[in-house]
């Protein structure tokens, strides 16, 4: 079943066509890699899929519903969430607070109940705390729950951002270079965790990676973009031997 599809989406910045008629079809529970050299347009594709940019042309359907012109938070509610290439955490808040903010829609009390701290407030906050701690535990981050995000080691910050993205209970999770800046050990561990959460939460994962080898290990399907266009699509083995891909990565 298709959860997310994009048809001919195009993004122009002035005269520059950053993404040119890009197509995408993600089935439920797939783990798909989106790779391509620097400036290929990967992040721009994410920005269109998550409502940060409105495509110049094209259509995007999330669970058969058009999300063109919907705001990012509306798209989150419809079931797609993401992380950012340059980590965007709430730096002066603790790790667990970061997660709780994305858990917002599942906390059920109104402002007056919150300000007067009614029983409902305490119950819901307790539930939120427990659920968010569970998410942190998946990433082995329980001990960091009360650490300010800005004081976390780099690798933990990356993981926290994924935990936060999961807190909104997405159907599709989009990760923009989640392993950037990690050492090989951390990277291998993270890839395993991504594999694990895909199965545990039964979600679809779209993963941007710069490094081709890295995604080969865990993705079932890989899409390669260059200069805003899809140049290849297929299983890791097909991609590995594709002459266009080799050219894009090594240069002519």
């Amino acid at each position: 079943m298709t959860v997310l599809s994009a048809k001919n989406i195009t993004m122009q910045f002035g005269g520059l066509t950053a993404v040119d008629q890009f197509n995408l079809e993600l089935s439920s529970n797939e783990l798909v890699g989106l790779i391509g050299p620097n400036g290929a347009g990967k992040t721009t594709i994410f920005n269109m899929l998550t409502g940060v940019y409105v495509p110049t042309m094209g259509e995007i359907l999330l669970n058969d519903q058009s999300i063109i012109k919907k705001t990012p938070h509306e798209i989150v509610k419809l079931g797609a969430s993401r992380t950012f290439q340059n980590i965007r955490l709430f730096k002066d808040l603790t790790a667990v607070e970061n997660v709780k903010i994305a858990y917002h829609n599942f906390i059920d009390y109104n402002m007056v109940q919150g300000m007067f701290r009614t029983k409902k407030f305490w119950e819901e906050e307790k539930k939120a705390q427990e659920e968010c701690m569970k998410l942190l535990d998946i990433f082995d981050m329980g001990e960091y729950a009360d650490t300010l995000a800005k004081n976390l080691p780099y690798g933990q910050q990356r993981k926290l951002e994924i935990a936060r993205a999961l807190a909104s209970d997405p159907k599709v999770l989009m990760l923009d270079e989640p392993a950037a800046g990690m050492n090989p050990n951390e990277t291998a561990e993270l890839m395993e965790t991504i594999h694990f959460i895909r199965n545990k939460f039964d979600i679809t994962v779209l993963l941007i990676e710069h490094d081709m080898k890295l995604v080969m290990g865990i993705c079932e399907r890989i899409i390669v973009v260059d200069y805003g266009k899809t140049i290849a699509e297929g299983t890791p083995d097909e991609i590995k031997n594709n002459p266009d891909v080799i050219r894009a990565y090594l240069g002519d």
Partner: protein
Amino acid sequence: MDHNKKKAYLINAVAVVALYLVFFVLIQTKSMNNYFVGIAIMTCIMIIMAMSLNIVAGFLGEMALGHAGFMAIGAYASASFSMALIDGGLPLPHLVILILAMIVGGIVAGVFGFLIGTPTLRLRGDYLGIVTIGFSEIIRIFFINFGPTGGAAGLKGITKLVNFHNVYWVTIVIAFLIFTLGRSKQGRAIISIREDEIASEAAGIPTTRYKVLAFSLAAFFAGVGGAMYAHYQSFLEPSKFGFMFSIEMFVIVVLGGLGSLTGSIISAIVLTVLPEMLRSFAEYRLLVYSLVLIIMMIFRPQGIFGRSEFSLTAFIESLIQRKNVKNSIGGGEAS
């Protein structure tokens, strides 16, 4: 509520009551003359103003330089309301009239906050600052020219309903409500916008809605502060609510620490009491403000408390355990 939270509530409740009793005794025994009681009342009103401004400036992280405008709306609306009520001859107790007037002042100001916030919150930073200044100037000029509330000559004959006792408890209640707001899901949503608006949207927060909410709430409490002011002074003149007054409030919040309510309280006390004590240097007050700001920007740009709260509970515990006191300042749940 776990055991520690209960303890924190208890300690703070005891401290609040104890402080009240001190003032109560001082006032009853006339050890504190009317002049000092007046300063104490004005200090409470400034605490309300600073804390409410902190919702926008501290929690939301936006520059709002028109807080006096909302205060003016609350003051005039509540005064007009109480005057009409008293003229109507309804035999209501004074406290009831005051509470109703506060609600009216708060709601009218809150509605204006909503109306002004909705279109202007698309702007950011300096631009929003300029628009809020413009708005509060419009309010001031409106009241100068508005006959029914006395125009430039001012509104006279407001019944004095505020005394130290009721303003103290109103301040405590508002402090509690704004504090709990900051630690509720709504408060977290507002704070997340300050931290990173794009990430906040990506986390599913309807940021526009929460910005307007923060703006309206700040205006609401500013309106309540205005109502207290009107029913304490029993006289309102538009010139009081000028640009410099908004700046004064902003300075208080910045000095205490953007986002720290205890910081706002302490800095409101210092910046209200100090100029009174230095009455003879009254002309230099704004100069002193500027100096204080400059000194602070050099030595402690995040304000006295930064974004953290002073925690009485943690402070007492650290005294008992002779731990480093500095660690307790900035403890999470301050209550």
